[in-house]
């Protein structure tokens, strides 16, 4: 491990290079999009579908909150589309070659919205709070052994083992930096700041009228003046899909993200000359749809049955008919958008019902008198929409090869209890997020040590493979990017061969925006960034 004298900035090899380059880049960004000067003023009204539970993600990971938390409460870093870090609250950073020391220089002269100074103490408190309370922070910061405040604007993290994903986890919505003076001595999960936040960000919290809207206003003292450009930022929660579309068409909402827009309406909206569609900027989500098999079911415990099911299901049908083409077919557990870890080089179970039947016959499950080999249930996450329709298609596809399959529906809480607590399921049709790194987003689904009944989004299949465990554990602490990629390729091949889950499609995510809204998606965080660059073109 590297050691450095306390209180002295260690001017190491790569110390300032990255950050200076990034600063130069970010300076040019606002002008890049249309070559126009940003315009000050205006109100941006956004529809995010469901109402978020909190406005600060210090102890929560709710998807809808991502779009709100980051605007008020910033993180240490922001990222371009390839996850290369760029400065935000940290101006310079340096990771020791052995991956065990992270050193940050923090931005000076930054003030919280209540007038207090932002210092390294806030960062130290926040990282500890994330480690103790955040549903993912517990894993992300698990190896952080010591947090040393080296000066008012300087901090280092000392790690037990390398955590190669840590540097991508410092985004505003993933690891927000909260004011220590408002949190210290309280339970971060229930702190009142979570619903009326004070941050360092470009927008100041004004009001949250439950069931109606959240209103943010421009921070006139923002550290990156003259940003932000917008005067007001309004978030609305339109849950009804048709009403969401109507709000886009009337122009009442200028940007829609995370809301439920029917696929049948998308083609019509795409034809509108005033609307734009952005599919990038979901780097912290990377959702996929998969059918997870319960290994505690005696039929599904047989690998031949799982292979037969893989041959019986036409993923292209799901992509084209259920998602109307707004999804990419998957051959493995990694969303192609997670480009650093995606490999196209995986074996494919081609759609071939006759082959599926042959495998089932050979495995000793002949069709009975009524044509049925055995029966299964399939439970989609949601009682309506694409998950339900995908489940219905799979049930029909399995019926055709003699596996009589019943679709059962329930609301989300009941689904979670059924699959992860009661384990009363055969096939679970799930939407899962790859997140920003496989160790954080994918390992949890396959690691045998994460078979934990009662914990949602764990290893629900009860899949156990020593080789998979070895690859995951090695990749989690491998600082070398190339070696780590190779480990994840081997991992993908292993789970595609073992089939604890059949990966189906990666649905497209959209930001639907009025073309006057500029700079809403500038990197991997998309609209989950701090929004300082967004402006309304006149």
């Amino acid at each position, binding site marked *: 491990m590297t050691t450095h004298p306390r209180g002295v900035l260690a001017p190491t090899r790569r110390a300032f290079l990255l950050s200076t380059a990034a600063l130069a880049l970010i300076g040019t960004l606002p002008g890049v999009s249309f070559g126009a000067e940003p315009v000050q003023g205006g*109100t941006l*009204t956004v529809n995010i579908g469901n*109402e978020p*539970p*909190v406005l600060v993600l210090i*102890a*929560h*990971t*709710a*998807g809808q909150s991502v779009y709100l938390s980051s605007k008020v409460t910033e993180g240490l870093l922001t990222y371009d589309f390839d996850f290369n870090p760029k400065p935000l609250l940290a101006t310079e950073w340096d990771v020791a070659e052995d991956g065990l020391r992270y050193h940050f220089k923090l931005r000076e002269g930054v003030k919280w919205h209540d007038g207090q100074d932002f210092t390294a103490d806030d960062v130290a408190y926040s990282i500890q709070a994330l480690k103790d*309370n955040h*549903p*993912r922070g*517990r*894993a992300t910061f698990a190896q952080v052994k010591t947090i040393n405040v080296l000066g008012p604007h300087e901090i280092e993290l000392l790690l037990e083992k390398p955590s190669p994903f840590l540097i991508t986890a410092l985004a505003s919505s993933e690891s927000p930096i909260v004011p220590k003076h408002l949190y210290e001595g309280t339970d971060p*999960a*229930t702190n*009142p700041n*979570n*619903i009326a936040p004070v941050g360092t960000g470009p927008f100041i919290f*004004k009001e949250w*009228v*439950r*069931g*109606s*809207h959240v*209103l943010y206003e421009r921070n006139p003292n923002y550290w990156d003046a003259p940003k932000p450009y917008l005067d*007001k930022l*309004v978030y*609305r*929660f*339109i*849950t*009804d899909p*048709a*009403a969401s579309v*109507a*709000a886009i*068409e*009337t122009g*009442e909402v200028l940007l829609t993200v995370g809301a439920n827009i029917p696929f049948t309406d998308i083609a019509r909206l795409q034809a509108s000359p005033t609307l734009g569609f952005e599919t990038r900027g979901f780097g912290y989500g990377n959702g996929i749809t998969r059918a997870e098999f319960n290994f505690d079911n005696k039929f599904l415990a047989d690998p031949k049955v799982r292979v037969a099911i893989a041959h019986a299901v036409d993923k292209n049908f799901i992509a084209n008919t259920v998602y109307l083409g707004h999804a990419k077919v998957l051959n493995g557990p990694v969303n192609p958008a997670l480009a650093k870890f995606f490999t196209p080089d995986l074996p494919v179970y081609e759609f071939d019902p006759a082959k599926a039947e042959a495998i089932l016959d050979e495995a000793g499950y002949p069709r009975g008198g009524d044509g049925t080999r055995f029966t299964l249930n399939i439970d989609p996450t949601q009682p309506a929409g694409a998950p339900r329709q995908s489940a219905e298609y799979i049930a029909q596809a399995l019926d055709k090869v003699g596996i009589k399959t019943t679709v059962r529906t*329930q*609301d*989300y*809480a*009941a*689904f*979670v*209890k*059924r699959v992860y*607590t*009661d384990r009363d399921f055969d096939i679970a049709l799930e939407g899962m*997020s790859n997140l920003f790194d496989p160790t954080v987003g994918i390992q949890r689904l396959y690691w045998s040590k994460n078979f*934990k009944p*009662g*914990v*949602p*989004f*764990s290893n629900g299949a009860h899949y156990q493979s020593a080789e998979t465990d070895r690859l995951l554990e090695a990749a989690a602490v491998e600082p070398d990017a190339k070696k780590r990629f190779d480990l994840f390729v081997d991992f993908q091949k292993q789970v595609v061969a073992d089939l604890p889950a059949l990966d189906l499609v990666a649905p497209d995510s959209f930001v639907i925006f009025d073309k006057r809204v500029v700079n809403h998606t500038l990197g991997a965080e998309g609209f989950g960034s701090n929004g300082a660059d967004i402006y309304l073109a006149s």
Partner: protein
Amino acid sequence: MSSLPRIARALRRTVLQAIPTVIGIVILNFFLLQLAPGDAADAMAAEAGSATEETMAAMRERFGLNLPMLDQLLTYLNNLAHFSLGYSPRYSMPVSDLIGQRLPGTLTLMAMALAIALLIGLTLGSLMAAFAGRLPDRLISIFSLLFYSVPGFWIGLMLIVLFSVTLGWLPSGGSGTIGSDLSGWAGIVDKARYMVLPATSLALFYVAIYARLTRAAMLEVRNQDFVRTAYAKGLSPAVVTVKHILRNALIPITTMAGMHVGGMLGGAVVVETVYSWPGLGRLAFEAVMGRDYTVLLGILLLSSLLVILANAVVDILQTWLDPRIGEL
């Protein structure tokens, strides 16, 4: 006999009956909600998309879900005895504040919808009765049946498509211009613009009921002796219709309207969802999906109180409309 003592007696009886009714409702609903699979921690984790053993345990402790079920009920009842509806960890605020935020919007929407429904329903019903069996009666009958049978969300969406998307006259959803500092008359007009479509969508279903009821009641009353007497006294047909026929026909309508108050309070979920109206119906729905029983019990408690209140008002109204009621 003066009507005051009768009204006082009716009120006392209502209050005495209300207390056990409300406690019964709370306990019954508490156990009903326990039957739903999954708890608030499951729902929160589902929403978050990530969880660990520690976060699940911390959430259960925060919600009091680690306590035995009876203890949870006793804690809740104890809170109620201290006039507290409890605290919702999911919304990070006291339940009474949460409901208080939504109550004014819900009540105004309900009042406006009920007013529209009664006004149009009574007018159409009177017209139908006046032209019973003839063409206007048939036509209005068809229209009211149409609105009765078409689902509320579809009417709501069609109104949005017509008045918001195509014509651009009215906003498609919400309950006021956000961030505007309108006050006084301009503020009221702004709120009213947002309320027209949801109130109309909510009212149309009830219009049909009131129109049919008014028609039937008026036809029945029209043939009674006191109507003939009124005509014989030389009163004009309009006065007879309004003061003698309609007033007596109002008894069944007020009874129904009183019952509908409860239905509209919690049952406006569909209209509230279509118009993103921050109402109690949606809050109740979200509370069920989130398994947040403190919020749901708070709403159900309030709804039951409001239903009891509405019934009391109807009782009083009816003793005024028909002095024979409540004499025994």
